[in-house]
């Protein structure tokens, strides 16, 4: 049993806003849903599957009602929440449901307002008394990974900076990007230290906004007017300190989700024409590229240097929308926009300055939670048919 080729991404929509003081979070969900429905060319009443995560106000009951989904049709829902990679996991779960005949047109939404609204607190687990006082934040959790990666493999701040430089080269062509200025390695390493060894420009932006997907059967996708993009491999995985045994913060759960997805797809990292890689921080990208097998463990620094991630320049064009480092990071959850830009590349709808020629295979990969504490990872391999 496989989901290979059994689900197509027929609709995508990324909200253009990065700052939405005049909108509600539920409203943003409705706007991105409307955008994806119209992009696919379907009717809202045809949706029979709905997926959302912790950013959806109230969860499934409230959102299916607020959005006015067709209660006579809606027969499959999933509110799996694995932080920023929830939507990549949803994509895989939607494909599973479609392959099993549990739904035929699935809607996945993400939206929220970390800049202009109140973010719901993250629920604590059994670790509460043993960790809460130590002030783990996104910055220092990823800082701890970077510090150890530098110690073990000699990775440098200059190498990490190349990741931001590449993202900025792409963001200059994205009219919606929050940071459109092209930056240099020197700009990055001269920006203030936030949490050692990460500088301000090693960090992603904080933005309001969201995105949505429509996932459907091959038959329905072929009846619509959009270029055909299908999911051919999917993986998910989880990692944490697990009782403190053999702690190693230099790799992520991508070491497991990646091979699962590549194996299902029957392709290898070398076959990828484009990569959407979650970029909450520069170190996030570097570790994931290694974990996914784009280079050997410890050689990520060398791999990303000298513009290797810049479209038209390097061997692996990545995050051609500018990514979380420059364009947006809706609700501090970057998985949705990773899928959307990969679909744009496969459709040939990316900005002409960053569009990869003959882009027929792409990867969208993300993590959720904190790489330095505990997290999930999910990998999707997408193909243009």
């Amino acid at each position, binding site marked *: 049993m496989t989901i290979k080729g059994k689900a197509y991404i027929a609709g995508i929509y990324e909200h253009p806003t990065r700052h939405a003081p005049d909108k509600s979070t539920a409203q943003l969900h409705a706007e991105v849903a409307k955008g994806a429905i119209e992009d696919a060319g379907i009717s809202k009443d045809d949706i029979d599957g709905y997926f959302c995560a912790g950013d959806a106000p109230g969860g499934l009951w409230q959102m299916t009602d607020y959005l006015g989904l067709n209660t006579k049709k809606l027969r499959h829902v999933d509110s799996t929440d694995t932080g920023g990679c929830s939507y990549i996991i949803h994509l895989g779960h939607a494909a599973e449901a479609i392959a099993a005949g549990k739904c035929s047109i699935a809607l996945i939404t993400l939206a929220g307002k970390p800049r202009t609204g109140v973010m719901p607190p993250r629920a604590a687990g059994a670790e509460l*008394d043993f960790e809460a006082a130590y002030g783990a*934040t996104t910055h220092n959790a990823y800082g701890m990974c970077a510090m150890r990666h530098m110690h073990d493999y000699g990775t440098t701040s200059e190498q990490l900076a190349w990741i931001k430089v590449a993202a900025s080269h792409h963001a200059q062509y994205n009219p919606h990007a929050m940071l459109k200025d092209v930056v240099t390695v020197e700009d990055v390493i001269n920006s203030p230290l936030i949490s050692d060894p990460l500088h301000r420009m090693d960090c992603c932006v904080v933005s309001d906004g969201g995105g949505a997907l429509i996932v459907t059967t091959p038959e329905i996708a072929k009846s619509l007017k959009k270029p055909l993009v299908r999911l051919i491999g999917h993986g998910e995985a989880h990692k944490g300190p697990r009782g403190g045994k053999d702690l190693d*913060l230099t790799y992520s759960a991508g070491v497991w989700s990646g091979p699962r997805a590549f194996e299902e797809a029957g392709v290898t990292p070398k076959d990828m024409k484009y990569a959407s890689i979650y970029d909450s921080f520069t170190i996030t990208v570097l570790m994931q590229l290694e974990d996914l097998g784009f280079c050997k463990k410890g050689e990520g620094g060398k791999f990303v240097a000298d513009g290797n991630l810049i479209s038209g320049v390097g061997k692996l064009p990545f995050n051609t929308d500018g990514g979380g480092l420059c364009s947006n990071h809706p609700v501090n959850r970057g998985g949705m926009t990773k899928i959307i830009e990969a679909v744009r590349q496969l459709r040939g709808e990316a900005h002409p300055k960053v569009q990869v020629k003959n882009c027929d295979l792409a990867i969208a990969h993300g993590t959720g939670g904190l790489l330095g504490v505990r997290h999930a990872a999910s990998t999707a391999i997408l193909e243009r048919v």
Partner: protein
Amino acid sequence: MVDAKKYPAPVTNPETAPFWEAAKQGKFMIKRCTACGEAHYFPRSICPFCNSDKTVWEESSGEATIYTYSLMRKSPTGPYAIGYVTLKEGPSLQTNFVDCDLEKLKIGQKVKVVWKPTDGAPLPFFTPV
């Protein structure tokens, strides 16, 4: 070095109460599984490695080395250094480094446990030896 930071009191629960009772005596406890022999932290009643319920409390030496760290340059309560240490007994755990020059921390450095008061049981932190 200002260290007047107020730390939250542990909530505690039946599974972890013995840890916090020992903490009040200045003892840093870990759990060890008598079935597989592995020590773990934070404490669980069921071994996270072999799934046995034969876990027992054991006092740790409180001696450790720094696995990694990151110095948070700004926060509402000032700079602080978070990190992981690896105990002499094996398990690694998350902590903060205190009572020292945060600019001089190094991976591999030897540290030891120190306790900071809260309104309830004290909390474990680590400081260079």
